[in-house]
């Protein structure tokens, strides 16, 4: 579904991504793990069009993503739940979700999507008229995920959904993702620092270090890999 090939990107003269190749098949759950500054968020920003790569290809369902203007990429079916949540602070929870449904697909499915989102995350129903900027971090993360789901995406990209959350809330978010996935069979690309959880839920995973893919494989292989166990799982 998503094919990234030989992607190289930079903000200055130092490349942040170097020759990155990643594949996500339809219906797959793929995780990307790696230390701070590895270029994980940059990879997502390149897919969304906020960063223009120096070279490489990105294809989504066979279409050349890099030829599509950034605001149009959401309409292709790519939902980006960004790092640090990035909700619209002065819009209400409901309005945030409506903005998620700005895509044609999201507009068409608005009623069903909203019902599902509010069932998965009932807090959002309670807080529907509250300004998103006044929500707690966990609630904002739910808004960000709900907003992504409201677009009726084919691919949901989540950038560190557990960032800055208490362990219990982070666990809750992971449980929700697993639940949503089991019910929808949505294709998910996840970036996470919490490597144990990221590997557990994923079918396939990549380890990104200093802009390069240093390891990839099924999550069982990676969970058994000594380097991963030592560097990321603390075993």
């Amino acid at each position: 579904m998503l094919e990234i090939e030989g992607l190289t990107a930079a903000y200055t003269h130092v490349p942040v991504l170097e020759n990155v190749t990643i594949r996500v098949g339809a219906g797959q759950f793929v995780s990307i793990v790696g230390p701070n500054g590895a270029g994980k968020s940059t990879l997502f920003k390149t897919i969304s069009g906020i960063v223009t790569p120096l070279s490489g290809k990105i294809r989504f369902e066979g279409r050349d993503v890099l030829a599509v203007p950034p605001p149009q990429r959401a309409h292709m079916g790519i939902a980006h739940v960004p790092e640090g949540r990035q909700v619209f602070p002065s819009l209400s929870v409901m309005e945030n979700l409506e903005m998620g449904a700005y895509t044609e697909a999201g507009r068409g499915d608005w009623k069903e999507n909203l019902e599902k989102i509010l069932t998965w995350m009932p807090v959002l129903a309670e807080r529907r008229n509250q300004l998103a900027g006044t929500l707690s971090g966990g609630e904002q993360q739910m808004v960000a995920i709900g907003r992504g789901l409201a677009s009726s995406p084919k691919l949901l990209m989540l950038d560190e959904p557990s960032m800055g959350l208490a362990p219990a809330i982070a666990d809750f978010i992971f449980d929700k993702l697993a639940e949503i996935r089991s019910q929808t069979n949505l294709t998910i690309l996840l970036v996470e620092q919490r490597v144990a959880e990221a590997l557990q839920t994923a079918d396939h995973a990549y380890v990104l270090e200093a802009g390069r893919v240093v390891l990839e494989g099924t999550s069982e292989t990676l969970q058994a890999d000594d380097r991963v166990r030592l560097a990321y799982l603390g075993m």
Partner: protein
Amino acid sequence: MTAAILIENILQALVAGLLIGAIYGLMCVGLALIFGIMRVINFAQGDFMMAGMYCAFFIFGPFGISALFGNVVGPYVAAILAGPVLFVAGYLVHLFLVSRVSGTNTATLEGEGHYAQLILTLGLALILTNGAMILFGSQPFSVRSPLAISAWEIGPLWGDRVSVFVNKSRTVSALISVATIAALGWLVARSRLGKALRASADNPTAAIYMGIDVDRSHRIAFGLGIAITAIAGGLLATNYSFHPYVGLEYVIVMYAGVVLGGMGSIMGAFWGGMTIGLIQQMSTLVLPTQLQNTAIFVIFLVIVFFRPQGFLGRSAERT
């Protein structure tokens, strides 16, 4: 006896202040809309207002609105129609000029493009004023409605003494202003377009992730802001004559109103403009007319000193 005259004068100034304040409010809302959504300070706003006035003039006369609607209603129709014309003008000015120094193109510019924006909008202001000077000359124009010299008399309120005169033209203009603000308020608060505009202002990057074309949002906001101020200009033109430099006279009103209302708050800007109108008219009770603008400035400084975030300012809340 003298008390009656004093009360009459105060009431008269109050009514005049409310009526002119509604138009000032509309003018300020245009500027606030642009600043609130694009974070661009448009120094040419006063001159776009002047363009709106000339536009109303030509719509009224040469384009036949006076023949169609007559001299009484025509000027107001022309003022409203100046809105869509200036919307297109603003939209194009953004597309070809402003977009180059704002929005998603500012990453590589010094000071997030604010210097370039300042220079560009000041340049636009000069071009508009001098362009109008070349095209229309310095003699005053007007689109005055006959209503401008007729009034309703309310009263006598106290014995046979106190009565207030309410100018008909200014009343109609104030009502059109309020209706325009209400329509804009609905658009921004409730419509899909309005929500997308606010989302673009709140977090442009996230807005792009949602599939919102932020540059287009800015173009629409810029066009709308210009159109709103142009309508206010057209309404002023039904009461006062104007010339190419008229923008300068109202720029202080606009900036004072927007800052009073809390930079970027749209409804705040309306109340800011209303306050300026009231201060201006009330000051005529104690000051000679030449000092009206000084009064605005002094009160403005006093209010900003005590409430720097403006009336409805939310700067602390914005992230």
